[in-house]
């Protein structure tokens, strides 16, 4: 186990997991001196009946101060301010966020406004602007993927001023994250597959990127093991309770890993593809992950090889010659995409050329790849990638990922 010359690691969030973890929330709130939470969620989560499950689990122990289900898919400053008003009007004393990334972001934004009595949220953006505890925040993720229940970042958009505000602080971490199998049980196979691959990309990138450290490594190894073991299983059989819980825990472990070790070219190109073409993040991650590994192979072969045992188990490990372990990891991830593609009846894309929108239109036309390659130069994840990546490198990887051909590694510029 390598001890880096210097590292930092932090995940202060209390993790409570189980098939009946929701029922523990009243006691957890009481420990934090809160008894009237505001529930923040979105229409999709509410329509899936998940808020009802949460409310049922809570009603014995606490008074619910309000349920706001109007969080848009893209966080919005106006909604943040409106929910903060609701929080104050109903004299709430805690926030429960039920949903995915945008719900978590919105809840974190509301928490800043109500805790700091902020009129201008912008004043609290950037590093170091928040320096004291906020109101109790309980996060209940409804996808096993983003890991935003353990991340310290929030992005709030001001659609009027066309501004994106970035908040980074340990004080934005939820106090408690609840991982309950009931929250992901109704997730459709296609979404399960792509959010699961998102989680895998966190675990894997967290393991090979430059800021890796012994604790993020341990979280990654455990995450890779659980996700590889259960993702296809729960995609095939959505009602698999144990599998759902394992995926929720695996995604959380992966979230802890990458929020400490950061991510690299897979996220770098993925963010850019999302921004340029509107492709869902999880699909970008699924498509790009094997290529990110290939791109960094010459610098990280031994490290990537260490993922083989947790991923594939003993038999595969024993049968794979030492020198081929890293390549085997890449082919196993390709195989996962292949399996998920079959299970979802072709909806889970394996390459960018396969990604279609609802009308069956190709979402990533080949001629936008240069634009994506350029946009990726301005995404922060590039810093943490082991190998440098310029415009040509980005295009090389994108083209391979579009066609679905393994990366021609002889074309990578090596220093």
């Amino acid at each position, binding site marked *: 186990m390598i001890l880096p*010359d210097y590292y*930092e690691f932090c995940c202060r969030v209390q993790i409570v997991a189980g098939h009946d973890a929701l029922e523990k929330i009243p006691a957890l709130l009481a420990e934090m001196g809160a008894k009237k939470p505001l529930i923040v969620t979105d229409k999709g989560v509410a329509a899936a009946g998940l808020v009802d499950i949460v409310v049922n689990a809570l009603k014995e122990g606490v008074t619910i101060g309000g349920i706001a289900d109007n969080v848009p898919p893209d966080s919005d400053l106006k909604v943040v301010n409106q929910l903060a008003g609701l929080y104050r009007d109903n004299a709430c004393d805690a926030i429960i966020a039920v949903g995915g990334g945008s719900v978590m972001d919105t809840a974190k934004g509301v928490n800043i406004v109500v805790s700091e009595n902020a009129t201008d949220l912008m004043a609290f953006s*950037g*590093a170091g602007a928040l320096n004291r505890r906020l109101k109790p925040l309980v996060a209940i993720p409804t996808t096993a993927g983003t890991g935003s229940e353990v991340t310290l970042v929030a992005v709030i958009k001001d659609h009027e001023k066309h501004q994106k505000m970035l908040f980074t602080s340990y004080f934005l971490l939820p106090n408690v994250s609840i991982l309950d199998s009931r929250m992901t049980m109704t997730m459709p196979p296609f979404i399960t597959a792509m959010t699961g691959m998102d989680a895998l990309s966190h675990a894997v990138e967290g393991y090979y990127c430059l*800021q890796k450290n012994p604790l993020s490594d341990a979280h990654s190894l455990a995450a890779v093991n659980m996700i590889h073991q259960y993702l296809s299983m729960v995609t095939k059989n959505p009602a698999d309770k144990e599998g759902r819980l394992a995926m929720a825990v695996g995604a959380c472990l992966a979230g802890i890993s990458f929020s400490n070790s950061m991510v690299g070219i897979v996220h770098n190109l993925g963010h850019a593809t999302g921004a340029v073409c509107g492709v869902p993040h999880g699909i970008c991650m699924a498509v790009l992950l094997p290529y990110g590994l290939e791109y960094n192979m010459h610098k990280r072969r031994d490290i990537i090889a260490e993922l083989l045992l947790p991923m594939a188990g003993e038999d595969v490990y024993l049968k794979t010659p030492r020198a081929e372990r890293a390549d085997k990891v890449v082919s196993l991830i390709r195989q996962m995409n292949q399996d998920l593609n079959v299970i979802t009846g072709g909806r889970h894309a394996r390459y960018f050329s396969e990604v279609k929108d609802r009308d069956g239109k190709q979402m990533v036309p080949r001629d936008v790849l240069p634009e994506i390659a350029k946009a990726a130069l*301005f995404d922060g994840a590039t*810093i943490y990638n082991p190998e*440098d990546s310029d415009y040509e490198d980005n295009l090389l990887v994108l083209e391979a990922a579009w066609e679905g051909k393994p990366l021609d590694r002889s074309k990578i*510029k090596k220093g």
Partner: protein
Amino acid sequence: MQEIHAGGKPLKKAYVAIFLWFTGRAIQAAAKVDKEVKKEFDTLPDEFTFALGSLPNGPWMVVGKEKGKVKYFGGNLKCRPIHLRLVIKNIEAAFLILSFQESTALATTRNRLMTDGEVPYALSVIRILDIVEVYLLPKLIASLAVKRYPSWWPFGHKLAGRIGVYTRTLLGI
């Protein structure tokens, strides 16, 4: 029981100040000599200014664009509005970075460097710093300071660039 007021670290501060002065002038020079640096600056808005330095009270290096030209503005943060600050957490870390014991990328991954401003700008600035380091430093040291040493650059290009950057840095033109 005693109450102590923290002392200073004048020697390390002086070293860092000299290096920042030199690097600032070198960036100004490289923007004239090197196509890539020029291109990178062209993507940045007019009057864009950035600062690199150490907490809590310097030293700093302020570089920016003025009427389309790239200029080193000295070490005073108040000299003009600053759009981006690359902040090193303390003078010891600044010394590690500017004595090339840790590359910019490595220092970032070791949480020594913080960005105050828009990330895309920060990435442009880091790319500029990397190229300037390749010109200023011998290959052995530069390959430690950057992630990937551009060994594919033609020898003549590197030599001409190096001579150009050094001459202009020393003369301050």
